[in-house]
């Protein structure tokens, strides 16, 4: 029987190539027309320490990982100890027969042991121990009947730079892995059939999707200080900065990064800053400067569990309230909370338009789970071609040439947005300041003017809410028994939980806030008022979105499913908790 859905886990130590092996396998899966979901679980260390890479393979688009392992590839003994209990009955473990693992114990649990001399095959066929991972891939192929040509293609591409011999050795190792499994009569319950003619797919994670969105959205400047799990945005853009003509700067600190971005943006660049919670905390003062001077600023905050350094390589959704309320005094900002590859891409592309149209900070809040999880998407989903540049009320060279009135940088207008000129034109020499100011940008202490300026800035949020903040994604039947509210990366697991609940006869729907701030209060209230029983599902311990909704609407979500152990939700976990609630 063709397998609809299975999970393969590669486990080993940091530095053993777990991640690159997994990524190669995912690409092969994607090319075969199947749908992968790859999730990395790693520690804050460079080598050693148990890491694993989990790959779900399905015959339709999936949005989350799930519980239960079908095939475990154990590069270390620890891998078996850590994961044996998670293996489903009928599943199996591929391991080097040199490892000291207890095959009998496996069999007692209904798990099949597949000892394979991975290192020996690697040495004999490839001449290097490091190819043991390739041998393991071969073993998987042997056990699942997957078409080896997809893997061969990946091997050829990945090792091309290392020369023909390396390519050939890896191909030999992979084939030997297949052969070993076949010749030893190993069998499994799995059958990975390709889906023909599915078209090309991109294999991409949330950070990459955001980066592609950003560059398509006109980002031409990035100043960022490395911080897990945000660093890969910086690294991707930097890697391509020369060909894409993007100024990139890794400065001395996050304080420098954000203020450099403000400077660059002030003179007209589309400037991006990437960071995680701790770095964002250092940007709080500058956030207010952006707000007060009405300088567009785009920040990607890829969160990890706090407080403080917390669990630096894991996932969590504990930064929402701190971002929405950061910095002294009230001023508007926009916070996007994408939950899918597509939404991450769109957040990247939209941010710059939003920041320029409303002349305020725009923060995309994602998290390690969205950032690092790898999925295959249709290339249309990453709609770079469709990204449009909209600078909003931005005075062009010609408009400035024709300017007759003295230029007023902070002019009072209907919607609060003042036409913006970047410094450098003779007709618009101006100042701006973090002090309260006049329309012209001079310092003022006048109480009426101050009040009007506060109102002007606040008005921009209302305008943005009306014109650009997108309503939550609503899914599932309208008159469901239970209604789940979520945001950010948790959407994937909630979406899949809906299906599982339906299978179990529970009708459920969901409301996923992909744009969190200004809170789209009206649709949220509609959803909550139309619901029988409401449940918030989020990855923090205080129910931040629940609180935010109450704060803005006075509505209180009935129940909470919270998780703050640094691990992402699974659909199964949500189903179980929902069943406890109803």
């Amino acid at each position, binding site marked *: 029987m063709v397998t609809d859905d299975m999970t393969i886990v590669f486990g080993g130590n940091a530095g053993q190539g777990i991640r690159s092996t997994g990524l190669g396998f995912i690409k092969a899966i994607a090319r075969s027309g199947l749908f992968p979901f790859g999730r990395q679980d790693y520690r804050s260390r460079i080598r050693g320490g148990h890491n694993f890479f989990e790959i779900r393979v399905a015959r339709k688009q999936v949005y989350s990982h799930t519980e239960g392992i079908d095939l475990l590839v154990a590069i270390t003994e620890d891998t078996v100890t850590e994961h044996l209990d998670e293996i489903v009955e009928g599943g199996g473990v591929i391991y080097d027969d040199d490892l000291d693992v207890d095959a009998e114990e496996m069999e007692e649990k209904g798990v099949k042991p597949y000892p394979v001399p991975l290192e020996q095959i690697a040495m004999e066929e490839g001449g290097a121990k490091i190819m043991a991972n390739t041998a393991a891939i071969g073993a998987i192929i042997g056990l699942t009947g997957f078409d080896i040509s997809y893997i061969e293609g990946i091997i050829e591409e990945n090792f091309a730079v290392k020369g023909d011999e390396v390519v050939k050795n890896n191909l030999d190792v992979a084939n030997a892995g297949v052969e070993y499994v076949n010749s030893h009569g190993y069998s499994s319950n799995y059958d990975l059939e390709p889906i023909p003619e599915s078209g*090309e797919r991109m294999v991409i994670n949330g950070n990459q999707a955001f980066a592609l969105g950003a560059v398509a959205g006109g980002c031409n400047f990035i100043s960022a200080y490395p911080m897990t799990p945000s660093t890969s945005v910086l690294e991707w853009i930097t890697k391509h900065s020369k060909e894409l003509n993007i100024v990139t700067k890794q400065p001395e600190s996050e304080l420098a990064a954000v203020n450099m971005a403000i400077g660059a943006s002030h003179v007209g660049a589309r400037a991006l800053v990437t960071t995680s919670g701790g770095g964002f905390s250092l940007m709080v003062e500058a956030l207010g400067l952006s707000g007060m001077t009405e300088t567009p600023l785009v920040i990607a905050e890829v969160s990890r569990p706090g407080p403080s350094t917390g669990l630096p390589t894991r996932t969590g959704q504990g930064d929402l309230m701190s971002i929405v309320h950061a910095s002294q005094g009230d001023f508007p900002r926009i916070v996007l909370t994408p939950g899918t590859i597509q939404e991450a891409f769109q957040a990247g592309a939209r941010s710059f338009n939003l920041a320029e149209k409303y002349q305020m900070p725009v923060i995309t809040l994602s998290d390690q789970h969205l950032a690092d999880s790898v999925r295959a998407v249709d290339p249309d989903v990453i709609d770079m071609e469709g990204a449009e540049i909209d600078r909003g009320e931005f005075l062009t060279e010609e408009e400035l040439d024709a300017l007759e009135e003295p230029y007023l940088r902070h002019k009072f207008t209907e919607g609060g947005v003042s036409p913006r000129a970047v410094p450098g034109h003779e007709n618009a*020499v101006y100042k701006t300041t973090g002090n309260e100011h006049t329309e012209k940008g001079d310092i003022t202490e006048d109480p009426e003017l101050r009040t009007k300026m506060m109102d002007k800035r606040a008005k921009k949020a209302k305008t943005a809410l009306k014109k650009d903040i997108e309503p939550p994604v609503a899914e599932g039947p309208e008159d469901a028994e239970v209604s789940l509210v979520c945001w950010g990366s948790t959407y994937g697991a909630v979406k899949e939980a809906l299906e599982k609940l339906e299978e179990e006869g529970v009708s459920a729907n969901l409301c996923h806030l992909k744009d969190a701030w200004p809170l789209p209060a009206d649709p949220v209230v509609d959803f909550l008022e139309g619901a029988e029983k409401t449940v918030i599902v989020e990855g923090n311990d205080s129910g931040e979105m629940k609180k935010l909704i109450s704060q803005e609407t006075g509505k209180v979500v009935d129940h909470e499913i919270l998780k703050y152990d640094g691990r992402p939700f699974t659909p199964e976990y949500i189903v179980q908790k929902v069943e406890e609630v109803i």
Partner: protein
Amino acid sequence: MANDVSLADYQYPTQPTWCPGCGDFAILQGLQMALVDLGLKPHESLLVSGIGCGSKLPHYTNVNGFHSIHGRPVAVATGVKLANPDMNVVVTAGDGDSYGIGANHFLHACRRNIGITQIVEDNRVYGLTKGQYSPTSYKGFVTKTSPEGAIEPPLDPLPTALTSGATFIARAFSGDVKHMKEVIARAIEHEGYSLVDVLQPCVTFNPGRSYDFYNGRVYKLGDDYDPTDKDEARKTAEEWGEKIPLGVIYENNDKPTYEEQVPALRDGPIVGQSLDLVERSGVSYEEIKRSFM
């Protein structure tokens, strides 16, 4: 072109809020004169300042100004320069701002030789917050936060900049506007990073560093002084006490600026280029997307 600009172009209606006699007036004047001498029009420069008495300067002259937050003007200015290297970017901020809370940016700006000019209004006290010791206050200075006298030796700006790799360091004095103008003009002309530390009397909170104090000590480096001699420059930079040298102490034109080494700026300012990625860089979306397949 120089004839096109005059001091009148730099006049601005806002009256400075500085105390009468404050050394900041001279800096405002010296800077305006330097800009005029260089033939720069108001729209060709951007003054970036932090928070402090001195940081209010951009509000008092007709030029582009970004009055930012305490300690961060060098970072803001660096961002400006990296986005638009054609802009003449000048930082004007106090000693607390530059060498205290903002010293990290100062240090790294020197090192990376970013093409901005940093003019420090060095009154050796926190003026705007009404008189606390600053990083350049002398040991023993009695202030509201050092009732027994400051116990830290001061940071010495010029040697610090020199050690950190600055390619232009200079000192000016509010008591000599004409000389200050010349020094500032040379600093702006310098391609890389330039520091002008100005002896700026704060007549209200630092009586020990008055015009009189400095008048008796300062001397101008003569024509025979060679600012390209680094060893000489170090000695001169460290000179402080009975004799305080004024002028360009060190200049090195051999080091490339940061911005000229940034690949994305090879075709000119990034802000002059299209925001459309394909138009700007010639890459194809197809190609980028294919790299993920």
